[in-house]
């Protein structure tokens, strides 16, 4: 009897393990519609998603064109940021970088609206568009990231001496989300000549958020780092090979330890596409 019970227990354990294993799943694309901006805004967005240097000539020229077309840029950006647009988070992020790059007082209204309001801007998106937006905590993360983009634009205007932008910064520091509020307070703290404003913003914090009033901007070099990441490996280091040298660097980094993974996917004849 005991043996039978043990056997039954073992079978139940194996059955549980097998049932909890993940089966392989299949996936496929559903066509979605996303209107990508054209003109100066579209060009600027394309450039900032390709270039990594603000001193690059192409960046400078696209920025000049963007600033010349500021009215169009603002109205197109507003449309992208509105709830009824089909724009994804990344496109909204790029559009806000463009609005901030205008460094013009006419952008302040839109920047304020985004910094103070949850995204997307009203009116709310209809249900069929909702799928292109994120849900759950990542949706809130993205809303805060967009608000931070807008806040950066406001801080740039403050640095340019735009007085109404300073009032907005103070407003954001007292009424925004915890993320936006913390960064706005750090931005205020970075302007010691306006210590009175910082004190007012700090005083407006509820008791449970008092600590965020002490937050400061820091350089990544000045914050605590990981002293020895090897300590945090699950097992002693195996010496997994580094990435192969980039095509132009092969002469500088001759390597002989690259193994060819026989089971790796092969590049199809059509090559890169998307």
């Amino acid at each position, binding site marked *: 009897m005991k043996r039978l019970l043990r056997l039954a227990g073992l079978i139940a354990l194996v059955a549980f393990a097998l049932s909890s294993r993940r089966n392989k799943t*299949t996936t496929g694309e559903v066509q979605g519609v996303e209107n990508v901006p054209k003109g100066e805004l579209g060009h600027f967005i394309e450039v900032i998603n390709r270039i990594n240097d603000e001193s690059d000539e192409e960046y400078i020229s696209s920025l000049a064109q963007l600033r010349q077309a500021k009215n169009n840029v603002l109205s197109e950006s507003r449309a992208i940021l509105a709830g009824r647009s089909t724009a994804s988070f990344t496109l909204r992020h790029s559009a806000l970088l463009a609005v901030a790059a205008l460094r013009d007082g006419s952008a302040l209204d839109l920047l304020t609206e985004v910094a103070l309001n949850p995204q997307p801007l009203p009116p709310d998106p209809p249900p069929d568009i909702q799928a292109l937006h994120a849900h759950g905590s*990542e*949706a809130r993360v993205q809303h805060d990231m967009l608000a931070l983009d807008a806040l950066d634009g406001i801080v740039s205007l403050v640095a340019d001496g735009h007085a109404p932008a300073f009032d907005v910064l103070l407003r954001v520091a007292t009424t925004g989300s915890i993320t936006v509020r913390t960064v706005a307070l750090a931005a205020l703290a970075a302007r010691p000549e306006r210590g009175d404003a910082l004190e007012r913003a700090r005083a407006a914090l509820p008791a449970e958020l008092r600590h965020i009033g002490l937050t400061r901007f*820091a350089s990544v070099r000045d914050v605590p780092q990981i002293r020895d990441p090897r300590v945090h490996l699950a097992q002693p280091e195996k010496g997994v090979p580094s*990435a192969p040298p980039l095509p132009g660097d092969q002469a500088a980094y001759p390597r002989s330890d690259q193994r060819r993974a026989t089971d790796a996917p092969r590049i199809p004849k059509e090559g*890169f596409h998307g």
Partner: protein
Amino acid sequence: MADCTYRVPDLNASGDALYGPRICNQPFIDWAWDVHGFNGGYWQDGWGFDDVCNIRKPLARCLNAMWLLNYSAEDYMNEDWNSDALHWGPRYVREQFKRYDDLRADCGDGSATAVTTGCQWTRQWQAWRCTAGYNETKRECRSWFFLFAWICHLYAEVTRWVCTAFGWVTETFCTLWYGTVGGGQNVTLTIQFFYPAGGGDPDVISRAGTLIHEARHIGNKPHDAQFPAGSVYGAGGDGADSTWQYEGAWMFNALYLWWFYAAGTRTSLAMRQAAKQRANVILTNAFATSPGFVVP
């Protein structure tokens, strides 16, 4: 009929168009496939195995994140552990992923971008938790009156022994389980890792951040605290790290993003800005005790 479907947002703004042509390189694919432990069986049927250079498909989008991780430092061949997170980050991810049985793709249940299945929870006791608890108790013992301090020291020794024994038993059982009927220790990237809909990663840098985050979990550091008041991740819910000094997955994630923003190369202005904003969201929302600094 597919088990799950996805929509592909603008490929320029997500960074996939920038990285896509770079990953379409057979030596890179061979290397990435081998060192990250991809299991080919899980990357068929729409996941991109047969169309590895198509950035609309999951596999290419994952490879984009791996390319970003491995080539974003100017001197990318320098992966010194004593350097910064931008340099040692990719090495850390490779070492951790290689430690596990395989890297899979799956539809997931909508609750996470990646799932790490294995004994990282049970390994934490022997790896660091017992020693950390022991050291903390020892520190407290110093404040005891010297005549009674021995009781405290004895307590520290006994609890460390019990803790170590508990860790050994649970780890042995767990390893046996996953080594036999439990299906192995794996990292599974869900559909939300590849696409933003449903709360997923919207761009290449956020995917790279997820890889760093999961790698840290493999390194035996589960989240140990509740999210603070007002957190976008759900105030009071589990999943936060107690402090920056805890050196958990959120710290690794934010530190990498921060370095990428400050010194990332072969990328774009928009991608670096996204890294900065995401780092600030993590810094202000994912630690029970605020680190006290943000990215300017």
